[in-house]
């Protein structure tokens, strides 16, 4: 039942989604004096109460295995009990489907701040060539913008949210506005030496963690648990760093538990209101707007746009091009670990540091010939992490037995493993897209997405290259790699689509309205007051984790929108 109060305010902008894209848009518009309503499908976030940053496993009788012991049976919260996710691979009553022959996993987070509350915080600029790949090799599609267009917005985003790093003058990893990165952990210095020995550069990490006081936020206190959320907001989350401060301007109305269902259009085909389901009462409500910014996370954005059907837009709002849902891409993922004898017997030390590696390897072969078209970067893991459920299950299960000898093996093995993880660019292909499932709706009656996903030789060859490189690096530090007894096909080694949670591209930008959904400002080609400010606008998905670029592009879109509102163009 629709409840439209006559006196209901009309907001300059309704923003759908409070993650990296929505949070940035909210902050920038509020600062520019624009009144916004921010819709979030999940509940309010209370960091002091919700985050388990400083907790020990023994603060809970279940120690992190969850109340029902679900952790022992493959159930329980994604990324573990302590993570600040408020979301998961499956949400109760909100299914998605996967077409026969495809595999896809979709991580959704319903809470103010979305996935930025727990994400890895790796913050990498796209390189100039990343935006013009087609011009270089004839594969994929060029972006309608160049590095010069986006660079000033990287500057703004980095200066505001705070990113660590060092000036390297490396083409594949452009320098930015960096705060000082803490020194490498002991095993990371070793990885760095081994990496350099085999010709792979290894440089200080670029993480959205502040190591100096920034905009009233205190510097990192090095507890290593960024994934649990940070009570001092010393890392970037859109909730704490953008949404809450923006609310203090008095220009932001945050509406939580509001699951957007449809964009409603007027006679001219412009968006006049957003229809949403109030999750607490399961009733439909509407919020009126002069313009709308959709930033619900790429696939959720595509779903909302596809579900906004009308006589004017039978295939979904603004979808004359049919591009909605196409060009879906995740990052490729592959990991390899090894036991490092050189780490045995090292005196224990506090290796917490920032939440994430203090070093990483940017793509280094951009100007060399490889048998696959696009690059990858390498992330590192290791150290003396806080013991938790399952930390020593592998070793106990391998050595078996019991008693003092088992304890000794566990003690000696602690902190002696390192891991390398590759994240690479996938080229969009015809077989990878999402669409509305014709026969399934969620608990609100909203049609759900069906995913089609396919890796091609481009990605499989890249992953083979990762395995070869990681083996060289690990062996260069004397590592003992545990290899499976029988060879595993590359199709099984590569991550499942969606698993890296870098899914983007389903409403891409471009200059040609026939082959793209948005223009270069993230504005719909067909509907002038409709904007998209999340990863849906990506034309390609370089080996640079998408969040920083989502922030930069959302900043640009928000400034453009504020200008257009002023000129009364939308």
């Amino acid at each position, binding site marked *: 039942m629709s409840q439209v109060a006559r006196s209901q305010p009309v907001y300059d902008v309704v923003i759908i989604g409070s993650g990296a894209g929505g949070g940035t848009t909210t902050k920038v518009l509020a600062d520019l004096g624009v009144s916004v309503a921010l819709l979030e499908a999940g509940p309010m976030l209370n960091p002091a109460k919700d985050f388990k940053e400083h907790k020990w496993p023994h603060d809970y009788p279940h120690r992190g*295995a969850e109340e029902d012991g679900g952790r022992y049976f493959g159930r329980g919260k994604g990324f573990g009990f302590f993570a600040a996710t408020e979301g998961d691979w499956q949400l109760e009553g909100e299914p998605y489907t996967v077409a026969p022959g495809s595999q896809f996993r979709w991580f959704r987070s319903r809470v*103010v701040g979305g996935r930025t509350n727990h994400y890895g915080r790796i913050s990498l600029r796209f390189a100039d060539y990343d935006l013009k790949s087609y011009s270089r090799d004839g594969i994929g599609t060029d972006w309608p913008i160049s590095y010069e267009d986006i660079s000033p917005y990287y500057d703004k985003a980095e200066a505001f949210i705070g990113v660590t790093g060092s000036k390297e003058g490396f083409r594949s990893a452009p320098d930015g506005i960096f705060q000082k990165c803490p020194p490498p952990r*002991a095993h990371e210095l070793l990885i760095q030496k081994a990496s350099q020995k085999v010709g792979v550069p290894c440089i200080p990490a670029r993480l959205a963690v502040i190591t100096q006081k920034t905009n009233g936020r205190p510097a990192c206190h*090095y*507890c*290593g648990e960024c994934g649990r959320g940070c009570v001092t907001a010393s890392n970037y989350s859109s909730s704490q760093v953008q949404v809450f401060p923006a609310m203090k301007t008095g220009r932001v109305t945050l509406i939580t538990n509001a699951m957007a269902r449809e964009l409603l259009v007027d006679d001219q085909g412009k968006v006049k209101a957003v229809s949403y389901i109030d999750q607490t009462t399961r009733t439909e409500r509407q919020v009126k707007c002069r313009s709308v910014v959709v930033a619900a996370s790429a696939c959720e954005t595509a779903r909302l746009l596809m579900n906004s059907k009308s006589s004017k837009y039978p295939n979904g709002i603004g979808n004359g091009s049919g591009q909605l849902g196409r060009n879906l891409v995740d990052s490729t993922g592959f990991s390899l670990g090894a036991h490092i004898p050189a780490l045995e017997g090292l005196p224990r030390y506090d290796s917490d540091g920032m939440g994430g590696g203090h070093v990483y390897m940017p793509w280094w072969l951009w100007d060399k010939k490889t048998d696959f078209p696009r690059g990858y970067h390498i992330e590192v893991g290791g150290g003396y992490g806080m013991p938790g459920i399952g930390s020593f299950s592998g070793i106990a299960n391998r050595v078996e037995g*019991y008693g003092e000898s088992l304890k000794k093996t566990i003690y000696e093995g602690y902190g002696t493993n390192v891991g390398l993880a590759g994240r690479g660019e996938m080229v969009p292909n015809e077989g990878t897209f999402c669409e509305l499932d014709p026969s399934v709706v969620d608990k609100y009656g909203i049609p759900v997405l069906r995913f089609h996903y396919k890796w091609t030789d481009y990605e499989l060859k890249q992953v083979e290259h990762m395995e070869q490189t990681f083996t060289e690096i690990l062996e260069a530090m004397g590592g003992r790699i545990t290899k499976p007894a029988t060879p595993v096909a590359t199709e099984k080694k590569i991550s499942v689509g969606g698993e890296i949670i870098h899914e983007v591209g389903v409403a891409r930008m471009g200059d040609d309205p026939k082959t793209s959904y948005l223009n270069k400002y993230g504005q719909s080609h067909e509907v002038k007051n409709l904007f998209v400010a999340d990863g849906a606008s990506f034309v390609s998905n370089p080996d640079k984790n998408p969040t920083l670029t989502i922030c930069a592009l959302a900043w640009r879109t928000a400034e453009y929108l504020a200008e257009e509102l002023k000129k009364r163009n939308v």
Partner: protein
Amino acid sequence: MSDSSKLSTRRETLIKIAGAVTAANLAQPLLSQSDAEHVHKAAAASTALGGVYKPKLFTPHEFKTLQVLSEIIIPGASKGNTAEFVDYLSANNKELAAIFTGGLQWLDMTMQKRVDAKFIDAKNAQQTELLDLIAYRRNAQDHPELAPGIRFFTWARRMAVDGYYTSAAGIKEIGFKGNGASAKFEVKQELYDQVLRKAGFA
């Protein structure tokens, strides 16, 4: 500082945080770094308070058997309240409950057949003799009748390890130094030197 005063200061900090939420009517209180440090330290002091544990699922005999078994698997396990941990989860999980009540029963019956005594009443050498058989998967080949015991022991070991190394005692013993709050992250030069030297880089 006594344990109770540590806990009360922690409570005060948490109340302070909760108060900030109400006052601002917005959920964005930022803890200062010193507050964060305090919470981290206070959390470290908050171990389970004393008192005799009453099993939620296991009978007193089962619980005692589990305690003895866990202590053999991980000497010191009782300091980590590992049997309590298993009992807590088994009370909330039917699968775990079946694995543990069944497994403990199997242990008693098998010991009864071997030496005419329940597991906890057998001599230490008799206990380890049986455990030596079920602590290794390979033994199932020659002794198929041991398979249920081997399966159970795998679970008992897995949860004794988890229970112990997630306890304050286990975390201290393994040498975890983190979960603190410090103004600076640093690694001593001699650690770098040692690692590089051992790997042949220096």
